[in-house]
């Protein structure tokens, strides 16, 4: 069971490494969107500190959306998705591997660069730490839920826009608790509760989403 998951992760990571431009451009998108906000709303540190969690999280959602349409589309186009679906394993495990690989190349880099951007928004020690932890804990859920949307819109006209329409509403809980964790920490309430809820959502979506995505992929492959 773990073998197939690791096999898929290994393959997808290798592919991503051969196509680093994609990872880098999603990351730069994140950086640029976050950096534009202070230009739009003014440089007052108090205001920026207040907006930081929300801005960073919304930008993280959008950056994730950017890479989602290709999660299955490339494999679909060249026929490897059929081969994956025909492998003698449950398709859900294959999708689990793909979701984890997607997180490693899209979510993890966001978490790594988030502290730097947090500094731009005048966040301090604790806030930065919790921001990173929240993005680290929450982005796997984004990859998981996003996989369902990517599978449902596979091969459709205007799939990218449709994907955002389907997936963004489902991202709301992650956004609320992700940004809430930083807010609570900055205001001195402590963000542990939020972080544990985020972790719960991530585990729930990693358990549930791959199987829903697998069902959607089977529908798309009929």
């Amino acid at each position, binding site marked *: 069971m773990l073998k197939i998951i690791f096999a898929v992760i290994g393959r997808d990571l290798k592919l991503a490494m051969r196509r680093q431009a994609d990872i880098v451009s999603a990351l730069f998108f994140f950086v640029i969107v976050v950096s534009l906000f202070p230009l739009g709303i003014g440089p007052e540190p108090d205001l920026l500190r207040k907006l930081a969690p929300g801005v960073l999280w919304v930008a993280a959602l959008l950056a994730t959306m950017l890479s989602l349409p290709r999660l299955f589309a490339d494999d679909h186009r060249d026929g490897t998705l059929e081969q994956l679906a025909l492998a003698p394993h449950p398709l859900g495990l294959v999708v689990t591997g793909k979701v984890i690989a997607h997180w490693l190349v899209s979510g993890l880099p966001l978490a790594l660069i988030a502290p730097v951007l947090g500094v731009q928004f005048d966040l301090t020690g604790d806030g930065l730490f919790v921001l990173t932890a929240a993005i680290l804990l929450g982005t796997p859920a984004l990859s998981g839920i996003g996989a369902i949307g990517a599978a449902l819109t596979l091969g459709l*006209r205007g799939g990218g826009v449709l994907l955002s329409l389907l997936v963004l509403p489902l991202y709301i809980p992650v956004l609320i608790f992700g940004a809430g964790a930083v807010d609570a920490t900055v205001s001195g309430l402590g963000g542990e509760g939020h972080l544990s809820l985020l972790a719960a959502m991530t585990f729930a979506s990693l358990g*549930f989403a791959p199987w829903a995505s697998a069902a959607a992929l089977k529908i798309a492959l009929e």
Partner: protein
Amino acid sequence: MKDRFNLYRFASPATFYPLAGTLIPYFAAIAVLFGIAGLYLGMLVAPTDFQQGEGYRIIFIHVPASWMSMFIYLVMAFWAAIGLAFNTRLSGMMAQALAPTGALMAFLSLWTGALWGKPMWGTWWVWDARLTSELILLFLYIGYMALTAAIDDPRRADKAGGLLLLVGVVNIPIIYFSVKWWNTLHQGSSVNLTKSSMATTMLYGMLLMAMCFWMYSIAVALMRVRTIMLERERNADWVKAELAGDVQ
């Protein structure tokens, strides 16, 4: 076994189509009757609310519309589950027929909520848990309709849409509680069947209006599903026979 047989019989479009045709006028008539009774009680008889003045009367459509918007989504998810489990053709058509009505109910709930909020809270929109969840529900309806519209093969559309509905149903409580936690500005639930804070006439008026909305939704959905059936089954003999006759 016998029930099962009947279920399958009614799940066949050829049987359901004429049945729906007969039922529509009844549902429409009942909706009108309930509507008249509800409006009479709510608008003419019910006394004013001492806290909210006459503005509270918006409740007679706001609450039924909100209920229906949630209820219709649940019914669609129910049909989706049936469709995915038993591969019945009718279920996907029912879900698709209900979606626009559900979306309109969600819109009405938001619209009346805004018109209620302005005099009560002094603002058209507050980011409170229920309004926000209702807005997200509207997004979910729109997402469902956009997804099914984007897929050309009706069966794939049914299955993919059904899956989306089930994912949505799992997520709605999570979304609702997260939004509720995020902001609890709204007044507490004003309807409680055991111990109501409302005058009885108000409660009855509201329940009558809810029945009216319910019957209305069924009637419109049945009308829509009949069209979808003709369209989908256009090569079936019963549709050809139907079209050869003088259909309205």
